[in-house]
């Protein structure tokens, strides 16, 4: 069975494009346009991977990390950002439960490989 991926991003094109690409790579994607919806979906579907933008209109990325990790520590959490993350931000993100971060635009193949690595590290 394919791994469930939840994509949280307010940019519909990115969200949809990424979902389709990942679907093509063999993942099963669901999408959320904001943090609230994303958290709800995560609770409902119990995804294996969450890819989320840290600049969402309703919550800051780190708060979402916390919220998501309250629900489960089992999934792979990847942060997306359009800007540089400072070392502190990265550290903070990792401490709050993020497993990886990627900078837009990213290489899909690379991302795909990385997701699988992280999944296998989590024993999935």
């Amino acid at each position, binding site marked *: 069975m394919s791994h469930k991926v939840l994509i949280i991003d307010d940019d519909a094109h990115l969200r949809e494009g990424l979902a389709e690409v990942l679907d093509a790579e063999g993942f099963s994607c669901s999408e959320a346009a904001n943090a609230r919806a994303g958290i709800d979906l995560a609770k409902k579907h119990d995804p294996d991977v969450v890819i989320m933008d840290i600049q969402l209109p309703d919550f800051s990325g780190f708060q979402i990390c916390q919220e998501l990790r309250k629900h489960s520590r089992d999934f792979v959490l990847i942060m997306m950002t359009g800007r540089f993350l400072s070392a502190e931000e990265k550290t903070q993100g990792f401490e709050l439960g993020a497993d990886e971060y990627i900078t837009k635009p990213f290489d*899909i193949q690379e991302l795909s490989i990385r997701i699988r690595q992280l999944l296998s590290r989590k024993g999935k």
Partner: protein
Amino acid sequence: MTQRRKRGRLFYKFLFVFLLVSLVPLGVVGYYLVNLMQVTLNKAITRDQESLAVGFVDTVSTYITSFRNVLYDAAHLSDFVGMDVEKQKNMVNNIMQLHAAFLEISVVAADGQETIRIGRFLKDTKLRDFSNDGIFQKAVTRGEFIGGLERYMGSYPTLTVGIQIVSPSDNRAVGAVLAKLSLNGLSGILKTSFPENTHTQAAVIDSSGFLVAHSNLDEVYKSDARLPEDVLKILLQNDARTGGGEILLDNGERVLGAFAEAEELGWVVYIQRSVSVAYQASADMLKRTYKMGGYVFLFVLILGYAVSLVIAQPIQALREAAIKLGEGDFDYLPDLSMPNDEIGELAHTFMQMSESLKVKTAEIMSAKDELERLNRSLENRVEARTRELRSAQDELIKKERLAAIGQMSSVVGHEIRNPLAVINNSVYFIKTKLGGMQQPTDPKMLKHISIIESEIRQANGIIDEILGFARTREFNLKPAHLNAYLEDLTMSFPFPPHVELVKQFDPSNPGVNIDADQLTQALRNLIKNGIEVMPERGRVYVRSEVVSPDWVRVDIEDEGPGIPKDVLEKIFAPFFTTKARGTGLGLAVVKKAVDGHKGKVEVVSTVGKGTCFKIYLPIVNITQNKQ
């Protein structure tokens, strides 16, 4: 020093004053003394002459009286009347022989007939009749009579003495004896009393001014001999019986004259002395006074010179010292050790003054120096402060600008990278879909897809550079081992196959404080540049070398075409680029990062051989911090 020899004006003033003070009183006193002496002498001589004159009046009287007495005695002999003529003749002859002054003696009877006539130089011996003769009559009636001046034989001054012959029985006049008395004897006495060498003339004149006697006999023998009229005028018009004084003669000669009147004869005795002779003593005195004055002048001159020297010399020395002091020379003042007097005190005070002046001047100078120093330090501080303010202002402006850029970068990051990611995803999707199709894809389609991918990368790279430069956050320096860090860096860098990486790390593996993000960005930029300039093939050297106990150098060197010198100066400036497509921020980011590490970056480039960027970083001891 010629100045030392120079005498001040004071010296001459002193000398002049000394001379004035000592000579003027001397002159005044001398003048008065000489004058007084002259007056006194004048009076004394005049008085002397006067008394001489008075004395001579007596002599004259005595002279005449003595001869009258001879006649009187003869005439009054008790038997003279009773004598016969012969006897009388004998007696008269006798008298004539005894007394040379008698020139002629006559005996006249009461009726006036001459009875005897005996004369010394007589040729005519005829007896004369005297009955009408004045002298005879006066002699008979009065007892005796002395007549006026006569000129016997035209020249000898004589006078006639008449004495009454008295009959002893009835005491009645029976005749008279008349005698002519020569007065030459008087001249003789005068001559003896006033010899020629005394320059004194003495004369006896009668009431008419004719000469009776004179110290110079030649004067007397002149017929109608008289004294000079100017003298006579004084003598005859004078009512006083005696007198004297200075007379200015008509011939200009000054004489001292004195006179005395013989009353019974009506004669005047006159004594005259030349002033030059009379004042001989006073002239001598004057001469001596002048001589004395000369000596005193010389003495005072020498004394004054010495005293002036004593007074003026120290003052001169003081003056020189004052001049030196005025020139600010405190150390080489002339010797002012002086006697313990007012001038010595002045010198002492002067020395004290110069001492205090020296101290004060030094104080002023040091205060001035201090002031200058303070001024300088103030200027420096103002300058430093201005610099600080300016740099703070610059910093502020930069910060504001960077803040704006940071804000912009956020927008760029979010709003441009998102679309890029979307495009990237879509292109990937299309590519995979095309790859999955049965029939082969049009190669042009694939080419365009790869162009899109490449452009996305390009755009992304530019955004990276801009954001890298625009980052405003503080540097977060953490200690790290340089070699390990460089190892990680080169490991993660995607070197293309045509470029060879050569690592040369210093074995001492020094510790450095680094902000890994920033330094990595910087070094990546350099490596990327190195790769870019070697499109065919080449090597990139990554080197570390400890150059001093405090510094380690990191080299990123390529074998590209090198950078021309004129370009080399500008490469670290933001937005400077030689690339066809480039932001010109890559090396600016390097510079910024190295500055943030308190290091420095240099570039050495040889055209045709390659370029080497040298980054110097301070070494830190991190053994304690090691976990």
